[in-house]
């Protein structure tokens, strides 16, 4: 049969590689390249959505062994519902972003060559798809590295800026430290699967078939979690993320934040639920705690930012945290043999994976449109863009509502499911967990509310009020391809929020594959309109009624109030009799977050300086005030600086071996040979 999901996936990857080759060959005609290559990636992504959606919808598993790779180490590929789900997530966002790129990348024409951007964009997409399809450790790691390297070059794209080079360097270091941990984890599992003599344990099938002893399994899990957490930007391994994501071109930031981080989530789910399979509860607790810390700290750091893209990057840390909360709870429930509750928590986590891809992609695309129009990333300068860019503002607003977990959009549904999973934790047979897990629910509530505050700030300062900067640029609305890309993801956010039951019905085969229970039968127990996890006496939420109800009342109120013609008088704002009101007097990003900065200040390293320039040499006659505020990540000083210092210290000590004299080196070789002869005879 030729029409298997796997074959469609192959064809899609082939198209991506072909597009990369085309970009390499037709370097001269840049405009033509943008049109052709991004059209090809659009088609390829759509094909991937079809392949993934089909595999999940029908619960199909395809396995293929490619006659490639090293001798005896052939590439194994597998498309099961879990990889199908992630293919759909990645494919859907890259479909939107590819449409958006058709317009966005044109902005670089005339400044620089976009060939490298296109080549690495295609390779990046292909790498992410292959990671998800891989079914052996070797091919997984090769794809993982393709993805990491391609994204490194994408971050480096505008390499004349020093911040890009620095961010890319930091990124590649963290990515490789993570990759080493993943490699070691697979090594442990492969070694236990077949013993350390043969190589046949490198396939995931062999690992699945093995029952690992607890000690080794824990080692493998911790290594894998560390490695994937470094990629996902889990606190405290997040420092590269707010550096690298903002400096990349915005279409790439959308993909990196929206879906590249999700490959790490895929890795965690694949290793724990599928490859290892049986685990104690405290593995779940580890994941849950890291998730909670990432969620709360991520949103607090985001609140302190005034660079629009950096703010969004910190929100990715937060949302990865929320996803990990769902997965951690699912692990705890699984270890206590409560498959139905585990299915609920896992569905919440994976649903949030999908949602975060959609709204974070949308927000980065919106930020890209703003950047494109104003050439400005600093929110303190912006304001009033809603009048010049009405479409972008509307789409960005939808992204803001979704990420703030407000009904009837999609972010709310997955956070609501996570809350329900939390509320079911009292049925765990462990008093300690019963008392501690509710605290997690409170932290999640704090996260949601702070995220809403942060996005009131982000949207309010960027799009509302007046332009705050000294020179007002000539702002223009984004082109139509960019608008279509944003519109499609905004509509997806709404559809997922209003009709979550349809989506959960579709993805339910996943929780059956991983934890052995379905929630769809109960989730849609009283009709497709109501989402009722576990039972409808327990809790229910109806997206369609909330959306239609609010809209109906809004329309009725509007019509009733406009039956009688009442004039709207447009007047200048009331300045309280103080005539010289200026645009600098508006609240800006820093002042908006000031109360929160004061309350949670102990979590940051804040340096605040006020310098007074006085007339006549006395404080009583002030002329000017200089206010300087610097907020830094605490983890940099706590964790990274010591590590960096220590590695420099060690390398200096080791460097003493280097004498630069040939006879000293000969002695080294001689001693080495003697030692080897003595011990390894």
């Amino acid at each position, binding site marked *: 049969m030729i029409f298997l999901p796997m074959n469609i996936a192959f064809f899609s990857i082939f198209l991506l590689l072909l597009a990369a080759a085309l970009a390499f060959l037709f370097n001269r005609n840049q405009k033509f390249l943008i049109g052709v290559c991004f059209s090809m990636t659009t088609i390829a992504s759509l094909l991937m959505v079809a392949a993934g959606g089909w595999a999940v919808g029908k619960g199909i598993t395809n396995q293929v062994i490619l006659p490639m790779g090293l001798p005896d180490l052939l590439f194994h590929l597998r498309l099961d519902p879990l990889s199908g789900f992630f293919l759909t997530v990645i494919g859907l966002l890259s479909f939107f972003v590819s449409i958006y790129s058709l317009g966005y990348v044109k902005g670089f024409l005339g400044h620089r060559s976009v060939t490298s951007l296109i080549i690495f964009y295609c390779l990046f997409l292909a790498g992410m798809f292959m990671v998800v399809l891989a079914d052996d450790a070797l091919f997984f790691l090769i794809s993982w590295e393709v993805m990491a390297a391609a994204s490194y070059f994408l971050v480096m794209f505008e390499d004349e800026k020093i911040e890009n080079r620095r961010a890319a360097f930091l990124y590649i270091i963290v990515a490789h430290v993570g990759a080493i941990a993943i490699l070691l984890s697979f090594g442990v599992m492969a070694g236990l699967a077949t013993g350390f003599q043969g190589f046949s344990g490198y396939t995931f099938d062999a690992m699945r078939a093995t029952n690992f002893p607890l000690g080794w399994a824990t080692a493998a899990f911790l290594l894998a979690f560390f490695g994937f957490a470094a990629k996902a930007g889990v606190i405290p391994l997040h420092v590269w993320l707010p550096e690298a994501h903002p400096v990349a071109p915005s279409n790439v930031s959308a993909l990196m934040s929206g879906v590249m981080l999700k490959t790490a989530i895929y890795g965690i789910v694949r290793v724990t639920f599928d490859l290892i399979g049986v685990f104690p509860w405290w593995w779940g607790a580890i994941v849950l705690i890291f998730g909670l810390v990432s969620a709360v700290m991520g949103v607090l750091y985001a609140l302190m930012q005034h660079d629009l893209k950096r703010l969004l990057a910190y929100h990715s840390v937060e949302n990865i945290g929320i996803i990990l909360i769902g997965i951690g709870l699912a692990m705890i429930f699984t270890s206590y043999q409560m498959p139905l509750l585990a299915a609920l928590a896992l569905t919440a986590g994976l649903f949030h994976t999908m949602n975060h891809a959609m709204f974070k992609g949308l927000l980065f695309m919106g930020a890209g449109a703003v950047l494109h129009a104003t050439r400005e990333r600093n929110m303190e300068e912006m304001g009033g863009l809603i*009048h010049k860019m009405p479409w972008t503002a509307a789409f960005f*607003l939808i992204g803001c*509502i979704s990420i*703030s977990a*407000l*009904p009837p959009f999609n972010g*709310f549904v997955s956070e*609501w499911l996570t809350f*329900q999973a939390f*509320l079911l934790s*009292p049925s765990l047979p462990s008093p300690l967990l*019963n*008392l501690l897990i*509710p605290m997690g*629910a*409170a*932290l999640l*509530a*704090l996260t*949601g*509310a702070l995220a*809403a*505050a942060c996005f*009131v*700030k982000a*949207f*309010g300062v960027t799009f*509302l*009020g*007046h332009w705050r900067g000294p020179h007002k640029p000539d702002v223009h609305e984004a082109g139509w391809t960019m608008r279509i890309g944003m519109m499609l993801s905004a509509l997806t956010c709404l559809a997922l929020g209003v009709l979550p039951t349809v989506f959960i019905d579709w993805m339910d085969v996943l929780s059956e594959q991983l934890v052995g229970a379905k929630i769809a039968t109960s989730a849609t127990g009283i009709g497709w309109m109501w989402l009722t996890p576990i039972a409808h*006496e*327990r*809790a*229910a*939420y109806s997206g369609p009624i*909330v959306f239609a*109800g*609010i809209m*109906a*009342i*809004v329309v009725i*109120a509007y019509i009733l*109030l406009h039956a009688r013609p*009442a*004039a*709207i*008088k*447009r*007047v*200048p*704002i*009331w300045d309280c009799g103080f005539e010289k009101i200026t*645009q600098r*007097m*508006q*609240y800006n990003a820093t002042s908006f*977050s*000031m*109360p929160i900065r004061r*309350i949670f200040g102990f979590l940051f390293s804040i340096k605040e300086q006020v310098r007074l320039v006085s007339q006549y040499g006395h404080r009583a006659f002030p002329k000017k005030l200089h206010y300087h505020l610097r907020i830094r990540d605490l983890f940099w000083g706590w964790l990274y600086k010591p590590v960096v210092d220590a590695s420099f210290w060690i390398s200096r000590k080791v460097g003493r071996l280097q004498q630069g004299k040939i006879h000293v080196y000969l002695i080294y070789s001689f001693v080495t040979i003697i030692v080897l002869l003595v011990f390894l005879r």
Partner: protein
Amino acid sequence: MILYPFIIEVFQILLVLAVAPAFAGWVKALKCWSQGRTSPGLFQPYRDIIKLFSKDVVLAENASWIFRFTPYLVFGVSVLAGGIVPMLSVDLPLAATADVIALVALFAIARFFTALAGMDIGTAFGGMGSSREMTIASLAEPAMLMAIFTVSLASKSTSLSQMVQVIYSGQSVLRPSVAFALLAFILIALAETGRIPVDNPATHLELTMIHEAMILEYSGRHLALIEWAGMMKLFLFVMLGIAVFAPWGIAASGDLTAIPAAVLFMILKLAIVGAGLVLIETGLAKMRLFRLTEFLGSAFLLATLGMLSYFILE
């Protein structure tokens, strides 16, 4: 038979629309009496709303569609929420639309848009109000969730009609956990509805106003909708508290004959809660903004104590 719940539902929504201003008037009148002033009467809020509806709208030059859309949205959310909280009967068709968590989120979306509208004009007051409102909301949210968690432990549900039924059927009279949750809920409700000691609904002083600062630029029918929605929000929080903690008198089934009694009970309870609210508001002064962390922190602590006492005592 199957039609009765729908009739009750429509009746309840109309009741919320009609009674909410009277409740606000009642609180205001009691407050005036307790402070030795002459009250404007129970019906002053109605007169205010009618007057505002008939006035023209004065809009700032750079107000965007968000500023004009917000009043309608806030109003819509409040009306929808009015159909969800069980007041007269447990058997409401809309009750399954949202559980407590979703209900809180509904109010959150109204707040989100109000805060955006505050920033839309570009005055310092609007931004100040938005910033403070969002800060207070983010501190209140964990406490709110903890209170919900504690109550849902007893009723094994977050669905409002289910919670009401469990408490109503007397399975949980005088539980310590519920008592703690009630205390926490009162503190949170004061913060959420912007009453003293968190915010003063009567003030227009620059440095103390929070909610009023956000809606300072509104006029005419927009202001009328926002004021009306604000009264409904206060009313709904009171009704939410009554439903979850003292639901006696509510109709247990979708039966029309029980409704008049339920209405009477509701009015009686509203009068009592209004008097309690006035006692709090006249007895306390407004807190400094940064003292509110302690206020909401104690709400969180109370809710947590409630949860602990559930696991330890019950």
